C-alpha cells in the first residue's frame, strides 16, 4: 500500500503537489455531487413527472404494451446472447457474477433507481418481470443448444427471438398515436428507427463512392460531402420550415416524421464513410480470391468484402449510433418534438415548480439517462472491439 502510494502519488515534489491539487478537486466535486444527490436536491419534481419524462403522454391503458415490448426485447437479446456462444472457458461463479456486474451493474443500478423513484408496486413488479425475462431468455438459449432446436439455421433462430419483440413494437405504434409518445421513449425510437433506415442508404453510398463507375462515384461523393458539411441542427430547422415546399400538398408530415427523415439522410452520409473505411481495410487478396473462383462482382461484394467490412467497423457503427442517440435531443429544440431534454426543461415551468431553480434536478435526471445509455453502449463497443481484435491486427 505504501509502496503503491509512493509510486503512484508521491513520486517527486511536483508530483505530490499535483496529487494534492487534483485530489482535493476530485474530493470537492464528489462531495458536492453527493450533497446535491442526498441533501439539497429536491427530487419531487422527478417523482411527480417520472411517467412524462420516460414515455410522455402515452395513454395509461396502453402502457402494458410498452412493458411487454421491453420484456420481449430483453428476452430476445438474452436468448441470442446465450445461444450465440459456442464454447466458454470454465469460470468460477464469483468471477462470472463479477463480470456480469461490471457489464450490467450500471444498467441494474439505473433500473433500481427508476423503480425507487416510481415508488409503487407495479414498477417493482415490472423489475421482477425483467429479471424473469432475462432468466427465461437464458433458459431458452440453453434449451436450443441441447435439443433438436440446435438444427435450426442461424437466421431462423434470430428470427424466432426478434419477431415477437418487433411485432409488439409495431402493435404499440399502431395502438397509440405517435404524437402521444414522448420523453425518453422518443429519443430511443428516433435513434433506432433512423439507424435502421439509414443502413441500406449508407451501405449503398459507400459502395457507390468506391465503385469503378465514375457517374455513381461522383453522385455518392457529392451527397456525402454536402451532408457532412452541414450542421444537423440547421438541417432539422430546414425540415421544420421548408419540407412542405418539396412534397405534394396531400402529405402533411408531423415533426417525428420530419426528424426521422433528417436523421436518416444525415446519418447515412456518416455511415457511408465508416463503411468505406471498412471496405478499404479488406486486403485485396479477398476480392482476388473471389475472382479466381469465378464469382461475379456483385457476389464478391455481397458475399466476401462487404460482410467482412461491416464486421470490422462494428465499433465505429456503435459510436455513430451513440452520437445519433445524443443528437436526438436536437429534434426537441428544432422541431418541438416532445423528447426527454424538452420535457426536462418543460417540467421546470410547471405551476408547482416554477421559479424554484429546479433546473439542476431535472437536467441531472435527463443527463443521467443519456449518460447511462451512451456509456453502456461505448463499453459494449469496446468489448466487441476486443473480441474482434480489430485494433490488434
Amino acid at each position, binding site marked *: 500500500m505504501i509502496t503503491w502510494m509512493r509510486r503512484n502519488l508521491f513520486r517527486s515534489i511536483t508530483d505530490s503537489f*499535483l496529487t494534492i491539487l*487534483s485530489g482535493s478537486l*476530485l474530493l470537492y466535486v464528489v462531495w458536492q455531487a453527493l450533497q446535491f444527490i442526498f441533501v439539497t436536491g429536491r427530487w419531487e419534481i422527478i417523482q411527480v413527472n417520472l411517467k412524462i419524462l420516460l414515455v410522455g403522454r402515452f395513454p395509461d391503458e396502453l402502457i402494458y404494451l410498452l412493458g411487454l415490448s421491453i420484456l420481449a426485447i430483453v428476452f430476445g437479446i438474452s436468448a441470442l446472447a446465450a445461444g450465440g456462444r459456442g464454447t466458454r472457458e470454465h469460470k468460477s461463479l464469483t468471477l462470472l457474477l463479477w463480470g456480469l456486474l461490471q457489464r450490467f451493474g450500471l444498467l441494474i443500478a439505473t433500473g433500481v433507481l427508476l423503480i425507487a423513484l416510481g415508488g409503487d408496486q407495479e414498477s417493482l413488479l415490472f423489475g421482477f418481470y425483467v429479471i424473469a425475462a432475462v432468466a427465461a431468455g437464458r433458459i431458452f438459449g440453453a434449451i436450443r443448444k441441447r435439443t433438436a432446436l440446435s438444427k435450426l439455421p442461424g437466421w431462423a433462430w434470430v428470427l424466432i427471438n426478434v419477431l415477437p419483440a418487433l411485432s409488439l413494437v409495431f402493435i404499440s405504434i399502431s395502438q397509440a398515436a405517435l404524437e402521444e409518445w414522448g420523453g425518453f421513449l422518443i429519443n430511443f425510437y428516433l435513434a433506432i428507427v433512423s439507424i435502421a433506415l439509414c443502413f441500406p442508404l449508407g451501405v449503398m453510398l459507400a459502395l457507390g463512392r468506391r465503385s469503378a463507375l465514375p457517374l455513381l462515384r461522383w453522385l455518392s461523393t457529392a451527397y456525402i460531402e454536402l451532408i457532412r458539411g*452541414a450542421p444537423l441542427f440547421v438541417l432539422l430547422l430546414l425540415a421544420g420550415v421548408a419540407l412542405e415546399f418539396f412534397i405534394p400538398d396531400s402529405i402533411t408530415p408531423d415533426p417525428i416524421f420530419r426528424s426521422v427523415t433528417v436523421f436518416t439522410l444525415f446519418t447515412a452520409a456518416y455511415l457511408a464513410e465508416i463503411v468505406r473505411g471498412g471496405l478499404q481495410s479488406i486486403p485485396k487478396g479477398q476480392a482476388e480470391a473471389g475472382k479466381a473462383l469465378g464469382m461475379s462482382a456483385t457476389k464478391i461484394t455481397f458475399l466476401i468484402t462487404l460482410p467482412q467490412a461491416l464486421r470490422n467497423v462494428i465499433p465505429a457503427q456503435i459510436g455513430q449510433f451513440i452520437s445519433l442517440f*445524443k443528437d436526438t*435531443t436536437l429534434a426537441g429544440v428544432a422541431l418541438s418534438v416532445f423528447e426527454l431534454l424538452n420535457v426536462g426543461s418543460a417540467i421546470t415551468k410547471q405551476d408547482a415548480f416554477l421559479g424554484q431553480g429546479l433546473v*439542476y434536478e431535472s*437536467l441531472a435526471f435527463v443527463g443521467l439517462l443519456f449518460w447511462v445509455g*451512451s456509456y453502456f453502449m461505448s463499453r459494449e463497443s469496446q468489448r466487441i472491439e476486443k473480441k474482434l481484435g480489430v485494433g490488434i491486427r
Partner: protein
Amino acid sequence: MSSLPSTPAKVPFYRNLTALKWAFQIAAVLLVFALLYWLYSNYQENISKSNIQTDLRFLDNPANFTIPGNDFDQSQPVRDAFVQGFLNTIRVSFVGIILATILGTLVGIARLSKNFMVRTLGAVYVELIRNLPLLLLITFMNLGVVLQAFPRIEDAWVPLDLFVVSNRGIAIPWYLGPSGQLALIILAAVVIAFVVGKIRVRQADKSGKQDRAWLYGILTFALILISSWMIFGYSFETPLVDGRGTTGGLRIDPSLFALLASLVIYTSSHIAEIVRGSILAVNKGQGEAADAIALSGSQKMRLIILPQAFRIAMPAIGNQYLNLIKNTSLGATISYFELTQVAQITVGNGSPAVPAFTLTLLVYLGISLITSLVVNYFNRRLALVER
C-alpha cells in the same frame, strides 16, 4: 481474349460489359434526377400557390431586429445581419478551437499520467462529458450556471479586481486601441517569430549545438508586441461595475460564454481521447530510445512523443474541429446571434425560408471546406514521407 477462336468477334450490346455499366450508371443518374425534378416541381407548384420569393432579394429588406452586444441597427438590411452572424460564428469557432485543443491535449496527457489522482481526474472528466448530449451541456451552462449560479450584477464576483462575473456576462481586461491594427501586429509578430525560429533551427543544424529555436521565437514575438504596444500607446483597461452593467474591458455576453464554455468542454473531451490514443499509438521504442539517451521526462514528451502523436492525431482532430464549427449552430438554442440564429429570426420575420436556409447551409459548407483544406494541408506537411 479476342485471339481465342471460340469467342464471337462481336459481343451483343446486352452482354457488352462497358455498355451495361454505362446503362446502369445512366439509369441511376436518371433516377436521382427524376427524384430531384419531382421535388423541384413540387416546390414550383407550392411556391406559385403561396406567392413566396424564391431568390435572394430578401437580403436587401430591413432586418427589423437588433443583435445584442453589437451596434447593429434594425434598419440595416438582412444582408448585414447575416454578415454579423457569420462573424460571430467564426469568432466562436476560432476561439473554441484554440481553447479546446489546449484543454484537450492537457487532459489527454493527464489521462496517461503516472500519478493516480491526475489520471483518475482526467478519466472522470472525459467519461462524464463525452457521454452527454452537447445540447444538454449548453442548456445546463446557460440555465444552470450563467443564469442561476452566477450572481446578479449588484453583487458581482470581482476576482483579483480584474474580472467581473455576473449573470449579465463576464467582463475581462482588454486593451484600448483600434482592433484591426493590433490583429495585424500580432499576425506580423507571429510570422517574424516563425521566420526567426526557422533561421535558428537551420543555424543549429549547421553548428550542431542545441537550438532553443522556440525560445528565440517567443522572445521575438514578445519584443515586437511590447515595442509596438509602447509605440502605438495601447493600454489595458480593467472592467468596472457601473450601475446595471459594466464599463471598460471586453464584455462577453452570457449566451456567448455559455456556448463557448460548453463547446470547449465537450470538444476537449473528444480531443483528449484522440490525443491519448495517439500517444499510445506511438511506437514504444521511441520512448525507450529517448530514455536511453537520457532525455528528461518533459523533453521526452515534448521532443519525441508528442510530435509523432500529433502526426497520428491530426486527421481525427481535424474532424473534431469541423464538428465544433458545425456545433456552433446550437448557439441558436440559447439566443446567441450566430449564423443559424440570424437565419431563424429573419425567417420568422417573413424572409422566405428555403433561400435563407440554403444560404446558411452553403456558408457552413464553405467554412467546413476551407477548414478541411487547411487541416489537410497541415496533415500533408506532417505526414511521414514514405517510399
